[in-house]
């Protein structure tokens, strides 16, 4: 379908429909967005860009709120290690 695109989450390709945010793509890849200070897995909480739990590196830029960023073809996403 022409309205699908592919992003790379931690080196794995994930296919998503147009209009999908990176936070959703990270979930589809089966990953938490980040690991907390004491080692807990964390994912999006507020969905609107204020909690920063969904932060990931997008195309090399760190601390991007993935719930506010739309997926683009070939985007490279890295979750917190």
């Amino acid at each position, binding site marked *: 379908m022409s309205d699908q695109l592919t992003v790379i989450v931690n080196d794995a390709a994930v296919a998503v429909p147009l209009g999908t945010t990176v936070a959703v793509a990270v979930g589809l890849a089966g990953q938490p967005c980040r690991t907390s*200070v004491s080692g807990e*897995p964390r994912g999006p*909480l507020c969905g609107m860009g204020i909690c920063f739990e969904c932060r990931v590196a997008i195309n090399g830029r760190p601390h991007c709120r993935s719930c*506010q960023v739309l997926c683009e073809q070939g985007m490279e996403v890295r979750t917190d290690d």
Partner: protein
Amino acid sequence: MAAAARAAESGLQVGIVDDNTTLGGQIWRRSGGAPEPQSSAWAERLRSAKTMVLCGRVFHQPEPGILLAENDGGPYGLEYEKLVLATGARERFLPFPGWTLPNVMGAGGLQAMVKCGLSVNGKRVVVAGSGPLLLAVAAYLRKHGARIPIVCEQASWGSIARFSLALLRQPDKIAQALLVKRDLLSVPFSANSWPVAASGKVAVESVTISRNGRIENIPCDYLACGFHLVPNIDLPLLLGCQIRDGCVQVDDFQRTTVAQTFCVGEPTGIGGVELALVEGQIAGLTAAGQASEGRHLFRQRERLRRFARSLDRTFRLRSKLRSLPSPETIICRCEDIRYVRLRRYASWRSAKLQTRCGMGPCQGRVCGPATEFLLKWDPQSVRPPIYPVRVESLAFSASQAEPRHYA
């Protein structure tokens, strides 16, 4: 949007800065899919009136009449003669054991994720917390294929009954309520109910609830949990607007205590989209010198404000919710600070200095309302930048760049 449209239609040069990729805040948020008719109507008025739309987060005011904002392209300055603040609201999150598990989200939070591509088809979603948002979210999720074992509202049955009667005085709300009811016919709703704990290994697998006095454990894929809304007052605070009871103080024409600065919508008091649209129009018209036009909307605003006051009364949080977190429950998610460490401090400020609570990326936007409720702290202090920004933005000086000029 309403303020901008009215001001622009009255001849002013108007710009809107929105943090999201499309206009409409959270209430009209979408990415793909048909826009809500009301949203389209206002968007069309903005287009016709040639309003300039910018994407970005305002983070600082170096001097009156100038704001600094940042987006992916970098920082920029905005020079203005009049300013309308419509910074909206966010959900209130209350901590309980397991609330930090992935797939435990706000009610509006999960809805936003579904609007942006998350599939909940066939998934079990427990909806809990407080406020009319819960039912709206449950109806929305159901339409997208979710199975909803229960909606848990912490308010009492009596409060809900009285609220339903108040709805009868708001014709537009009745229509909305009936639509929601149709979508939720088979979904159990329980007042006097709240989450006690979320459990799971890498994500939530079940939720323990107190359902009308009885403890029940419900398996689920998501927990959508939010306790009503909190006004976003950081920018008004930064600008020096007077705040009372967590809301921006405004006069009849939506003017704040700061010159040339208006505030509309949820930051002046949680009241819903209809009220925000009316307040927005009053502000836009007044900014454009058409205050008498704005007066025509006063009666409508008063009716909607009565509804807002009934919202406040109905969904007040019960004190029992203060006993939900255990000593080990994380309160500050950014810095992983547990309740046992925070309880010994008498104020937000001393806790912040000793533990870093509130110093993480969210800058207290999540733990602030939680500790305000749990410990009666007053988390109101703000310092620029009011949003995490890149170093280049901090170094940016409005006088160096070419500010864009707006009325």
